[in-house]
């Protein structure tokens, strides 16, 4: 057991999986000598050398495209895209190929690939360094989409993603990298991909969040408890796709009310599928429409205005009160 922040926890997962399996390698821009711009791959090149920790040229499509080739051969590349805002450069390789080779080759090939990306805002960064693009990946059949919310589950989910025989897009919230430290067991552990977790039991309202927004949801829940005597059940989604509808429906069947909070723009965002799925599964228990608290439908407004765009606890509390009063 050691107390680690998310950067160190992710680094530990990489280190242990590379020790465990010689087929695991790391590739991306500045992941080698520099250790990654967020230091998630720190020192791996010292331990494993530049053939296994590859400082690639500056080209996202080729990072993913060549990694797909490696994966088809049987290796397990863990790719880093420096910021999720630059992953659209390789979006065609992900959609055309990473997600499809198993189907296209009818099982002769599969693509055990992990694509790590820092995402999310609130860190005073510029355009393309502050967005949340999970929705784009969640809608691609053949992919899995994972977003941890803290050091321990980040380490366990990354380990699971690396061992997963199918391609996993793995989002890491920049704001969480150095936010909190957690006890992380020395021996490697995994968390099942595709399972959400109820991180707080409650009776009146289900709050659904993931990644950087989990903190916001917890904060809001505390305020609601303290000021309104309302108990919230908080679901940490952890996996966006495939979506754990069972856990969501079970919770809302109990509480009768739900609120989703995410950093992505509201329209056609992940909250829509979550709301629609809950309606499908718990319609008769619903006492209010499922609320969505999300960023506005605007391009990133610059970090001087970000505060008014990314959901905060106050917004969640206000929306929750409306839902509870409905």
């Amino acid at each position, binding site marked *: 057991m050691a107390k680690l922040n998310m950067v160190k926890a992710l680094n530990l997962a990489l280190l242990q999986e590379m020790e465990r399996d010689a087929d695991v390698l790391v590739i991306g821009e500045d992941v080698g000598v520099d250790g990654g711009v967020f230091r998630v791959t720190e020192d791996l090149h010292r331990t494993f050398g530049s053939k296994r920790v590859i400082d690639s040229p500056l*080209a996202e499509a080729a990072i993913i*495209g060549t990694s797909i080739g*490696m994966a088809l051969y049987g290796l397990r590349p863990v790719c880093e895209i420096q910021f999720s805002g630059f992953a659209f450069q390789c979006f065609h390789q992900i959609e055309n190929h990473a997600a499809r080779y*198993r189907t*296209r*080759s009818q099982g*002769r090939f599969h693509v055990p690939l992990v694509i790590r990306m820092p995402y999310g805002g609130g860190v005073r960064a510029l355009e393309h360094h502050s967005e949340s693009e999970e929705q784009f990946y969640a809608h691609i059949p053949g992919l899995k989409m994972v977003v941890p919310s803290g050091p321990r589950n980040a380490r366990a989910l990354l380990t699971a993603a690396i061992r997963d025989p199918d391609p996993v897009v793995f989002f890491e919230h920049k704001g969480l990298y150095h936010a909190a430290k957690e006890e992380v067991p020395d021996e490697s552990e995994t968390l099942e991909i595709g399972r959400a977790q109820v991180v707080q039991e409650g009776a009146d309202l289900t709050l659904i969040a993931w990644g950087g927004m989990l903190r916001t949801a917890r904060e809001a829940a505390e305020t609601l408890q303290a000021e309104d005597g309302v108990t919230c059940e908080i679901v940490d989604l952890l996996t966006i796709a495939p979506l754990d509808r069972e856990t969501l429906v079970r919770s809302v069947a109990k509480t009768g009310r739900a609120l989703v909070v995410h950093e992505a723009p509201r329209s056609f965002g992940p909250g829509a599928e979550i709301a629609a799925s809950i309606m499908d599964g718990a319609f008769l228990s619903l006492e209010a429409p499922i609320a969505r608290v999300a960023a506005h439908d605007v391009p990133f407004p610059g970090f001087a205005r970000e505060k008014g765009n990314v959901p905060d606890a106050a917004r969640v509390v206000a929306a929750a009160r409306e839902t509870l009063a409905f």
Partner: protein
Amino acid sequence: MPRTPLEPRFQVEYLSILDAEGNLDASLEPKLPAGDLKRIYRAMLLGRRLDERMVRLQRQGRIGTFAPIKGQEASQLGSVYTLRPTDWMVPSFRETAAMLWRGWPIEKMLLFFAGYLEGGQPAPDQRDLPICIPVATQVPHAVGLAYAAQYRNEDSVVMVYFGDGATSEGDFHEALNFAGVWHVPVVFVCQNNQWAISVPLKKQTHSRTIAQKALAYGIPGVQVDGNDVLAVYTAAREAVERARAGDGPTLIECVTYRLGVHTTADDPTKYRSNEEVAEWERKDPLTRFVAYLRKKRLLDEGLEQEVDAEIAAGVARFEATAAADPLAMFDHIYAELPPDLKVQREMLAERLRKGETGPRRPPEPSPPMRGQRSGQR
């Protein structure tokens, strides 16, 4: 200090051994075993004849749109012949002849173009990627395979095919640049057939050759007469040996021509003249190779019939394939089917039981890998 030309000046070679008139440059003639020369010719002929047969099958609506190879047989066989079974072959969508050489059964090729994914499944031991439709996107996969081979200390080589149009895509550039930096065992075979659908090479790029694009990546590039199977073989063998010896990637430009339609949905008369086509028909790769083999007394009697019989048998096996079971669409999505997909599968099964829906060929006219012409036209 002032204006200094950087040495060495860059250079690209053009290689031709057997010209359209059948003249041979004996000094460059490769020493290929008689049996192999025969096998190569047979494979070229098989490609040519299957192509013709597939066009008929498409017209009959028994397969969908596909991309004929007529005219490119030498580019494909001269190169693919240099590979071992343990090497990797990465096709685009116009390598029927090369794919047959690599062991793809005729019926699988037909199934693929009939809309059955089963047609894209390589044999368990086969080191071939399936047909790749998005232009140039397969090129980085080849570089990754080559990296993996090097990583595993295997001496396998990767050969990847693409067209002249593909060289305009970002993926081509990024892949060749990675290959140059990584110095991996990959051979880039560009079948420059002069056209990308309706776009001629001069509208595709302002560079004089495709081969010279290699200079941008610090790797060797060579231009060969792509209708001269001996020249293609010679260039490919050099490149494959270089790759296997650990001396890195090569770009080979095969100057050839698409004698037929881009795909069966295409109407070339809209964009190119019959004179141009006739011009290139005189350079037909089979004609000159036949002349060469005849001089060597290596032409077998009844080869055409033999090849046609093989095709007929393949078509028969294709025709015998059962209608596709729709439920199979859930078989190869993930290693394990997630709960929601299990539900979707169950609902489809339910509908099938009720006979609500099912596999039947929709009425629409058979269209396109690249578009369909207006029925009105």
